[in-house]
């Protein structure tokens, strides 16, 4: 790292034009984040033509701002309406929405904003210090490592649910099955597409999340309209109380680190990081039964993680020229249009762009924090809107968002069908969380596992021969075998001790 170019990067950020584009970018990002479905990738694509006429550095500063700004905005609908627009905010909806129902929407959004700020900022500092190192480490992750990582993720998913384990596992299983819709990733043969091109590329995550969470929830609430609704009297306040802060500060720190590390991995890093952060908080908590019922750590951890991951997902793009997710792919295109090919040479050939963009994120995160705290008060008033108005408006916004993904009307019918499924699941006590996350991870698991099998010539032991994957397998085994066995032994001992006096 060259200190001189880092510092001159700050000089670049504070040029008035760049400041302006940073503010525009993060504000826009936050707004599109609030609109579920209209994700940052679509927004950046829409704005691509405009960036033709802007210089490269401000253009990329603005587009990057849209991306991480959307992470702040996405939380709002997740918490207030249970509408996660991104896979990485699904777990936030679990406890965030419960907090909102208990009249603590303000606290949930407040801690999410603060966590996001800390996570994002910590991640930029780490990026500045060790970006090239981390980038090389990410390349060590091959299909084998992704397979084990996805397996760990799916196991974590199964433990997310609030109710019976069997129901969580069932929901996750169906999610895995739904992930197989589309062309077989290795053979190209169509599966469950019913001869239609519409399903050839599988089902987009946003459609599944919007259907099961958003539309399903609306249908469920409509049915309950005649019964007394739990009145949301207060929204709490956006600045967390001392108690809430004490409860979440460690969660924020842990989430930031988890997010930074997993965010570097191309493909599903941000989702995995929010999931892992949630699981870690649930394990770390003294009373894990609070989770799923409005535990503030369940919001703080994953939100810090997904923002840290959003930032660190720039590392593969800027240092290797590898887009880590759909939004990065569009940013990749934006850089190309600017005549700056993203690749290993970027930091050498265009240090002003690299450090200008990286350092603009400090400022962008600060603006977002300052912007979100007062706006929280505005957004939570949404909850005061009568269901009869809020429900159709939410459906309308959902439909626009879903349509905007591929400009395809078929997807709108799909989201309704999934909404009905989500309604049915809720009636029968199945959680949509495990379903949706298993759906996301299922694609990763299947394709990575089958790629690994080809690379290992069909030898499963291959997973043990690669150092990183072997370590991950060990983690997996400890979680699913050793921990439950220990717990069982302990509970038997406890039972024996409890029984002994009565046997006398």
């Amino acid at each position, binding site marked *: 790292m060259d200190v001189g170019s880092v510092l001159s990067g700050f000089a670049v950020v504070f040029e008035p034009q760049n400041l302006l584009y940073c503010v525009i970018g993060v504000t826009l990002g936050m707004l599109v984040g609030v609109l579920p479905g209209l994700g940052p990738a*679509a927004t950046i694509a829409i704005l691509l033509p405009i960036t033709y006429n802007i210089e490269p550095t401000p253009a990329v500063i603005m587009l990057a701002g849209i991306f991480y700004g959307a992470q702040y905005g996405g939380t709002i609908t997740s918490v207030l309406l249970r509408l996660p627009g991104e896979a990485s905010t699904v777990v936030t909806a679990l406890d965030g929405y419960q907090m909102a129902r208990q009249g603590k929407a303000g606290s949930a959004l407040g801690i999410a904003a603060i966590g996001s700020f800390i996570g994002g900022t910590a991640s930029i500092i780490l990026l500045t210090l060790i970006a090239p190192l981390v980038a090389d480490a990410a390349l060590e992750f091959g299909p084998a490592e992704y397979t084990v990582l996805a397996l760990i993720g799916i196991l974590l998913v199964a433990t997310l649910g609030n109710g019976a384990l069997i129901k969580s596992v069932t929901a996750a299983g169906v999610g895995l099955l739904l992930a197989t819709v589309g062309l077989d990733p290795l053979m*190209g*043969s169509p599966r469950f597409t019913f*001869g239609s*091109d519409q399903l050839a590329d599988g089902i987009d995550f946003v459609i599944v999340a919007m259907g099961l969470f958003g539309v399903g929830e609306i249908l469920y609430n409509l049915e309950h309209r005649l019964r007394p609704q739990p009145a949301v009297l207060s929204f709490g306040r956006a600045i967390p109380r001392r108690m809430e802060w004490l409860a979440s500060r460690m969660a924020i720190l842990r989430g930031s680190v988890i997010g930074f590390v997993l965010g570097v991995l191309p493909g599903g890093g941000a989702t995995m990081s929010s999931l892992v952060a949630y699981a870690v908080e649930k394990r770390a908590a003294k009373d894990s039964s609070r989770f799923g019922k409005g535990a503030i750590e369940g919001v703080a951890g994953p939100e810090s993680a997904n923002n840290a991951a959003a930032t660190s997902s720039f590392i593969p793009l800027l240092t290797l020229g*590898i887009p880590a997710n759909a939004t990065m792919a569009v940013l990749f*295109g934006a850089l190309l249009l600017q005549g700056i090919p993203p690749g290993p040479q970027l930091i050498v050939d265009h240090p002003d762009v690299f450090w200008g963009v990286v350092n603009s994120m400090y400022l962008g995160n600060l603006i977002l924090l300052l912007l979100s705290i007062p706006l929280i008060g505005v957004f939570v008033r949404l909850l005061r809107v009568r269901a009869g108005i809020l429900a159709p408006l939410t459906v309308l916004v959902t439909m626009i968002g879903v349509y905007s993904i*591929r400009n395809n009307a078929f997807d709108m019918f799909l989201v309704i069908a999934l909404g009905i499924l989500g309604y049915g699941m809720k009636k029968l006590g199945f959680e949509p969380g495990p379903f949706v996350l298993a759906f996301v991870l299922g694609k990763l698991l299947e394709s990575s596992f089958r790629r690994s099998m*080809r690379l290992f010539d069909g030898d499963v032991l291959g997973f043990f021969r690669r150092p990183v994957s072997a370590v991950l397998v060990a983690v997996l085994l400890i979680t699913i075998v050793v921990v439950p066995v220990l717990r069982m032994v302990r509970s038997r001992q406890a039972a024996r001790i409890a029984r002994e006096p009565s046997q006398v």
Partner: protein
Amino acid sequence: MSESFARRRVLAVLAAAAVLPVAACGGVKGGSDDAGSDYPTRAVNFTVPFAAGGSGDLISRAVAKAAEKPLGQSIVIANKPGANGAVGGKEVLASTPDGYNIALAVKSLFAITPLVVNDPTAIQPDKMEIVATLVQEDYVLVVNAASPYKTLEELVKAPSVKYATAGVGTGGQLSQALLFKGAGTTATDVPFDGGAPAVTALLGRQVDAMSGSLAETMEHIKAGKLRPLAIFSTERSEFLPDVPTAKEKGYDVVVDQRRFIIAPAGLPEAVSTKLEQSFAEARKDPAYETFLKDNYMERWEVSDEEARQHLKDSATEFATLTQRFGLTFKS
């Protein structure tokens, strides 16, 4: 009372807002001139049947921008990805042939996809008009710079090769399958979910080789991270003049990607002429020229008939080759 009235008004306005654009579209469609002599009187919709940010998207945006001036109307790009361009392409071809709906199309959809999937509703070339041909993109075979294989000869003699592709039914897969089969190499294909993940896998040495477009690989070649061994074109590429063609090395494998713009068949003569002229003009634009250079794309500018013939010939050639080598991509 007044509050609920206000609410109803809001809803009514919203409902009206939702209906208006639809009505407006219908009105304009009905009013279009059959002969098309005054074409274009409004914006032209350009469907890009690929995701935003990819090569197909970028070339479309570049050429559309250059074509707006000669066309005299704006061109509105909409990404509608799915099934290697089949979803968006079919929709545009099903629309009224009035020149207001055009789409980008790729050669692989016509020459390679049929080898992989049975699609009874696949786009028939006689249902489309090719209003402009744009570019040719070559595939290059690369290995990691740290790989022990320095030449194509060394690679094909390797005891076993695991090669990455950008997915099933891509030129990268076909070119490598034909090469390794022809050379008698024990090789396994590992399809990834697009070009970038395949390049990533090669950079991390998860695989031994990959064949990708120049746009996907060139930056890494320049940075010295990947080593090009051969190019699957008839002649050497202007961008990699030192890299031999597979043909020179004795493997008659020529696979490339070509991109062109289609419209539904049956365009009025005046409309089709206007579109052809506008895109011909656009291809001369200096910004478009720079774009091609920056993205390592070569010009492919031929007539509708030549383009059709090329698609047909390639489809036959690929089908014959795969059959001869006993390769099956269908399952």
